[in-house]
């Protein structure tokens, strides 16, 4: 079990250009650039000290200008957690690296994010719509999604 | 009391008096067929009801009890409903085979009924290879199932049908061999003769240990023959939906359904005839009243039917490969061993006779 400070130091020693913060959250948050995502994730999983082998939540978020994914990681050995956040400014062709080769569970979760946010995950083995039909237009969980017939705004 | 039985004799005499011989025998055959068809269609319906009530009692429910007294007319109403339903079919199904299948199944089960000795001299067709005929005819039904599964143009139905084929072919062996064990005792295949032999003790008593083993094997493989749980791989509703009769509706479905219950009756009737002395009363208490033989026959059969229902409502289903393992690794070797034991018993005259 490592506390947030120790984790921060450890991760910072691998990737110095990451952004860390703890305000407004119970976990250590890490902001990573899309091009470093895969390397960071693999290091987080494979390093003995961190060994974040359990990806327990993968959520896509639409922040208005940017689209991104938040990964909640936990280590089943050390029982410490960390939150990794990645964002992309490109709203038309958002592309991030898939982590499904690191955690198998990301396979379905990334398909869900692709389905609802339209974020493409490169190197994903089977990236296609999971819940919606193939011919569905738009990505419903984006904030700018409009469906005048089915959506009731209060 | 013998008047009830003599009615058939009277009709026989009257027919042969009124017509030329060929016409009389033809009319007689048709009459008997119609009577059997009528009786067993109704009996099948009541078996369905019985199954549903018994299932309900096992499951702490009430079961159908609205239509008629205690739900006695429930299955009649169901049959009427099924009669009035549309006969649906699938696209690009093999229509001929698809339509033929239910008749195959129901006719084969009705044919098997003809040889049972319900009481003394009350047997439609006392053929000298009775048991052989039974085994042969009762396995025709599987062809109907295969046809239905193939003709439906449905993959679930096809899987069900193929399972049925595998299952019936394997378990046919056990049914045959366990009956063969008993034939060693009786020395005859004719059902009336088998009953005759049992007047000095039911075969399950005469043959004691090997007979009991043979009976157990027969009941297990008989349950498998009729595709009932725990061997209901063919239907396996949680796996295949409804199996081979997925695409059948209305009366065609009812034929399959009825055939299942008549088959169950047949298996139990065979067991009754071969192991439990058919219409013979226990210790000969009602030997002087032959018409009560029907009662004893039915009672024994129904007890066995109940046993099969008890199996069904208790056990989980086997998987298809385990089903075959059970047959080929357990039942078959035991059966063969059992035949040898029985042969030795008969040879050394170690059977129990009163």
């Amino acid at each position, binding site marked *: 079990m490592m506390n947030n400070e120790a984790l921060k130091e450890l991760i910072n020693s691998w990737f110095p250009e990451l952004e860390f913060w703890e305000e407004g959250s119970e976990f250590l948050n890490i902001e990573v650039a899309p091009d470093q995502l895969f390397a960071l994730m693999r290091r987080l999983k494979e390093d003995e000290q961190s060994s974040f082998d359990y990806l327990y939540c993968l959520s896509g978020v639409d922040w208005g200008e940017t689209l991104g994914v938040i990964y909640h990681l936990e280590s089943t050995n050390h029982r410490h957690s960390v939150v990794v956040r990645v964002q992309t400014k490109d709203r038309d062709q958002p592309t991030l690296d898939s982590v499904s080769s690191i955690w198998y569970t990301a396979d379905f979760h990334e398909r869900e994010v692709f389905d609802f946010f339209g974020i493409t995950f490169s190197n994903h083995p089977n990236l296609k719509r999971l819940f919606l039909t193939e011919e569905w237009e738009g990505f419903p969980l984006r904030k700018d999604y409009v469906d005048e017939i089915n959506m*009731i705004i*209060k | 009391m013998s008047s009830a039985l003599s009615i058939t004799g009277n009709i026989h005499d009257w027919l042969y008096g009124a017509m030329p011989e060929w016409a009389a025998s033809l009319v007689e055959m048709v009459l008997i067929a119609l009577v059997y068809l009528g009786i067993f269609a109704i009996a099948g319906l009541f078996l369905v009801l019985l199954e549903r009530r*018994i299932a*309900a*009692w*096992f*499951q*702490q*429910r*009430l079961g159908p009890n609205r239509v008629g007294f205690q739900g006695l007319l429930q299955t009649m109403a169901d049959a009427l409903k099924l009669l009035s339903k549309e006969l649906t079919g699938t696209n690009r199904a093999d229509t001929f085979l698809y339509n033929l299948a239910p008749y195959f199944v129901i006719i084969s089960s009705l044919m098997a009924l003809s040889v049972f000795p319900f009481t003394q001299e009350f047997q439609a067709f006392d053929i000298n290879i009775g048991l052989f005929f039974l085994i042969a005819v009762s396995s025709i039904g599987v062809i109907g199932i295969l046809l239905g599964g193939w003709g439906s143009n449905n993959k679930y139905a096809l899987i069900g049908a193929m399972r049925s084929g595998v299952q019936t072919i394997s378990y046919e062996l056990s049914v045959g061999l366990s009956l063969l064990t008993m034939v060693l005792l009786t020395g005859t295949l004719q059902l009336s003769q088998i009953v005759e032999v049992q007047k000095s003790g039911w075969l399950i008593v005469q043959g004691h240990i090997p007979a009991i083993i043979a009976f157990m094997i027969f009941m297990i493989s008989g349950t498998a023959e009729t595709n009932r749980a725990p061997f209901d791989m063919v239907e396996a509703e949680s796996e295949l939906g409804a199996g081979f009769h997925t695409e059948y509706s209305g009366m065609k479905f009812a034929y399959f359904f009825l055939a299942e219950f008549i088959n169950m009756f047949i298996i139990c009737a065979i067991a009754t005839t071969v192991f439990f002395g058919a219409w013979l009363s226990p210790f000969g208490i009602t030997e002087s009243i032959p018409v009560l033989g029907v009662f004893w026959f039915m009672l024994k059969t129904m007890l066995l039917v109940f046993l099969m229902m*008890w*199996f069904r*409502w*208790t*056990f989980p289903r086997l998987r298809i490969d385990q089903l075959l393992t059970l047959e080929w690794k*357990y039942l078959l070797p035991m059966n063969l061993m059992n035949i040898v034991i029985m042969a030795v018993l008969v040879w050394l005259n170690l059977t129990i006779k009163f």
Partner: protein
Amino acid sequence: MSYFSEIFHGIKTLLTGMGVTGKYFLNSRKGAITQQYPDNRDTLKMFDRFRGEVIMPHDVNNEHTCTGCQKCEIACPNGSIEIIWDRGIDEHSGKKKKKIDKFVYHLSLCTMCGLCIDVCPTDAIKWGQNFENSVYDRTQLTRVLNKPGSKLRPGVED
């Protein structure tokens, strides 16, 4: 020998299982757990807190306690409640006051979450125990809860 002991063990477990069901079969006369529903309508009583439908109790003078504050309408997640209201002169105080014209309740939209009843400051609406809500026409599921001619009970303030 394990071949035979396996068989015997197997048969034993099967018989144990049959014993369980057999016991229930023999006791089936006593304990059916199902209910014969439409027959036992008279004796069938729901629990006090059962959420069947939202009702608005009226007393003998045809008065309810709904002040038309619309808190329930806001609290409802599905828009099942619509309050059509007006301002009128209160008979007792003589002041201009909000009063309900129609309390429209769409049972077809209701998810029985209970937030409206929870939030009601005057306990004007309550849970009804009626559970037989099936109708032939869904317009019948839209109900006006305040009875015709009913008015606010004097002294009720939100």
